[in-house]
């Protein structure tokens, strides 16, 4: 028995013993998630218990060094833990942009002081982070962002606006891109800055989407003073950090959506229920053929993800394929949500109130919400551009 097998057995036993039963079912809405932070709330006592147990074992950030609140696991052990969590159907004990996105950046590019100041709080869910990238004039063309940070002594003074900041209204800190030098080519004048959301001059306004309320916010900065030690990397070196971080974001978007989908009634069973069955098959043959095509494509996408993971594990360098999975995953998600409301017919048209079940109302909202998935985190068009140039080598 190898050391890894030992670890697997140990992890499995611990999870079996420590993950509450209610935390082994998929969440039925975003409200059930645990995000931590100064103003942390928990959907249930089980959610709190699960979070605390995982936090205390360092498994909220399993592969981070123990010194920074992590679990100190090797990459291989981390994968084993993920497999065991998936096997048991465990919910994420802590959702965190800090762990998924900022942490890896700080570990790579942060000073020792920055690591000590921030990582433990992130791993332990004490501080909640948000990401300040997009601006109204800089969507797909992220590098044209304009929020200014002017150095004054040992501070930067930041003014401007961010948009699409997820959970900015609930976050304690923000990592963001700012323009420190407008006189150089646009990618060279960008810096990566950490900002305490409690600083004077910051105001936040939630954004309402076509699907209703959303975690997104607009964030306004008016002469906000940020200590210069909160600059990550060198001044003007923010773009490289930003692009490396975007890869983590793409992977994350795919992962989170998948978990939600598991809680939904299968399309095939909706079809049988609403359109009727004939000899155990969906009675409407045209719909059935569409469901089959969708099922085949979802299966192929899942296998492609597994193949890529196996190849990376076997030592092949990970490439721009994250763009493929971002693109395919979100387009498939949109198809699935569209199919669901189509199957439901009149029952898939509800917005609120009487006459519709909660699942039907979710179907409508999810369908609308899915429309944003191929825009946020780099639109489908941006992903296709990346694939054309970086993977296929087509000329600019």
């Amino acid at each position: 028995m190898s050391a890894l097998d030992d670890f697997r057995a140990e992890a499995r036993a611990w999870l079996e013993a420590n993950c509450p039963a209610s935390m082994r079912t998929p969440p039925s809405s975003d409200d059930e998630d645990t995000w931590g932070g100064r103003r942390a709330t928990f959907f249930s006592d089980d959610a709190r218990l699960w979070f605390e147990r995982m936090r205390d074992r360092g498994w909220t950030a399993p592969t981070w060094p123990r010194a920074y609140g992590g679990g100190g696991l090797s990459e291989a052990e981390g994968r084993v833990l993920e497999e065991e969590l998936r096997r048991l159907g465990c919910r994420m004990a802590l959702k965190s942009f800090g762990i998924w996105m900022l942490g890896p950046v700080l570990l790579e590019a942060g000073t020792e002081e920055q690591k000590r100041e921030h990582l433990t709080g992130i791993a332990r869910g004490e501080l909640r982070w948000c990401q300040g990238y997009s601006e109204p004039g800089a969507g797909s063309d992220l590098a044209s962002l304009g929020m200014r940070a002017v150095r004054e002594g040992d501070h930067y003074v930041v003014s401007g606006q961010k948009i699409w900041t997820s959970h900015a209204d609930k976050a304690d800190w923000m990592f963001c891109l700012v323009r420190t030098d407008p006189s150089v080519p646009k990618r060279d004048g960008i810096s990566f800055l950490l900002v305490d959301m409690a600083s004077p001059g910051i105001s936040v306004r939630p954004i309402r989407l076509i699907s209703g309320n959303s975690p997104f916010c607009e964030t306004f900065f008016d002469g906000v003073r940020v200590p210069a030690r909160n600059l990550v990397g060198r001044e003007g070196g923010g773009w490289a950090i930003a692009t490396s971080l975007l890869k983590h974001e793409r992977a994350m978007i795919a992962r989170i959506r998948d978990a939600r989908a598991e809680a939904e009634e299968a399309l095939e069973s909706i079809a049988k229920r609403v359109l009727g069955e004939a000899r155990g098959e969906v009675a409407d043959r045209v719909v059935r053929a569409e469901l089959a095509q969708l099922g085949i494509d979802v299966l192929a996408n899942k296998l492609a993800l597994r193949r890529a993971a196996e190849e990376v594990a076997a030592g092949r360098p990970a490439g721009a394929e994250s763009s493929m999975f971002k693109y395919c995953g979100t387009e498939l998600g949109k198809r699935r949500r569209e199919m669901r409301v189509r199957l439901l017919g009149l029952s898939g048209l509800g917005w609120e109130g009487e006459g519709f079940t909660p699942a039907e109302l979710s179907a409508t909202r999810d369908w609308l919400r899915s429309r944003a998935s191929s825009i946020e985190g780099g639109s489908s068009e941006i992903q296709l551009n990346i694939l054309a140039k970086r993977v296929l080598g087509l000329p600019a």
Partner: protein
Amino acid sequence: MSFVLTEEQRAIAKAASDLVARRAPVAHLRALRDSRDPVGFSREVWREMASVGFAGIGIPEAHGGSGLGLTELGLVLEACGRALAPTPLVSTVLLGAPLVLAAGDEALRARELPLVASGERVIALAHEEGPHHAPTRVTTRAEPHAGGFRLTGEKSFVLDGHVADAFVVVARVAGEADDPRGLALFFVEASAPGVHATRLHLVDSRNAARVRFDGVTAAATLGVPGEAFALLDRVLDGARAGLAAEMLGGADEVFARTLAYLKERQQFGVAIGSFQALQHRAADLYCDLELTRSVVLEALRAIDRGDPEAARLVSAAKARAGTTFSRATAEAVQMHGGVGVTDELDIGFFVKRARVADVTFGDSAFHRDRFARLSGF
């Protein structure tokens, strides 16, 4: 030269679009939604539309209407579609009134039709019972009672059902669900004992209700009980074609807004409309729209001239309107990017309307099937 508008038709189209632009732009629907307006449309705007004759199109002059055809009504609906203006045009002018006109007795027509034409009366069709359009799937029963009929059953999707003054109810006097024979039409006052309407809050913020009939005594029988299906399907075809015209207007408008955005929005130092991938998608969508426009216009005209091919054209029109409108809104969202999914922009209203309109009176799949059947395959 049926595709070319006459002087009169051009005047109607202009009057409709002027009135809608002034009184019922998309902001009007937004305000009704945000204020949770109990009626769901503006009676005042509707009366103004009636005053210029829009509520009376299709109603003979003798009953206070203009006696014009579906081609003209299509122009008004297209204008309303551009602004997503909520009116009882579909429930009352396309459905309730034509059924009363075709099958009501003279007294009923003389009483109801002038009120419709003046915008005072909403007459809804209570028909659909399931989650998908199925014209013959009716289980609501009509039982003989005191020389008339008593109705019992539930209708799942009645346009303007919670504000209707009266209903035309489809009920069964014989046969099982799905049998086209055995259907009958009844006129029922909304105030009749046993009528229970529950408003539905739909994604497009337009009016619909679930309506239950608990042993309701019908005020009148329309036509011959048991033989209503042919008339019902013919009137439904008018509504399908009219709705397709509304959808065409919506698709056209959301495409126009997208084009404007493509020309205005700058990214990477240029207007995003200069990117060839977007240009080709926009050009292909333009073709899609032009083809849909042609078949929608022809369907309306075919009904007006009593063409035996009308039903087939209507199904072609409704099927294409469904896919084109939905596709135009999907491209609008994607090309607008982030702002396209915010409630602040109007694009979402078009997305939502496209979905509801596709489902109403049979979605694209329903009409593809019907087109095939009517084409003999």
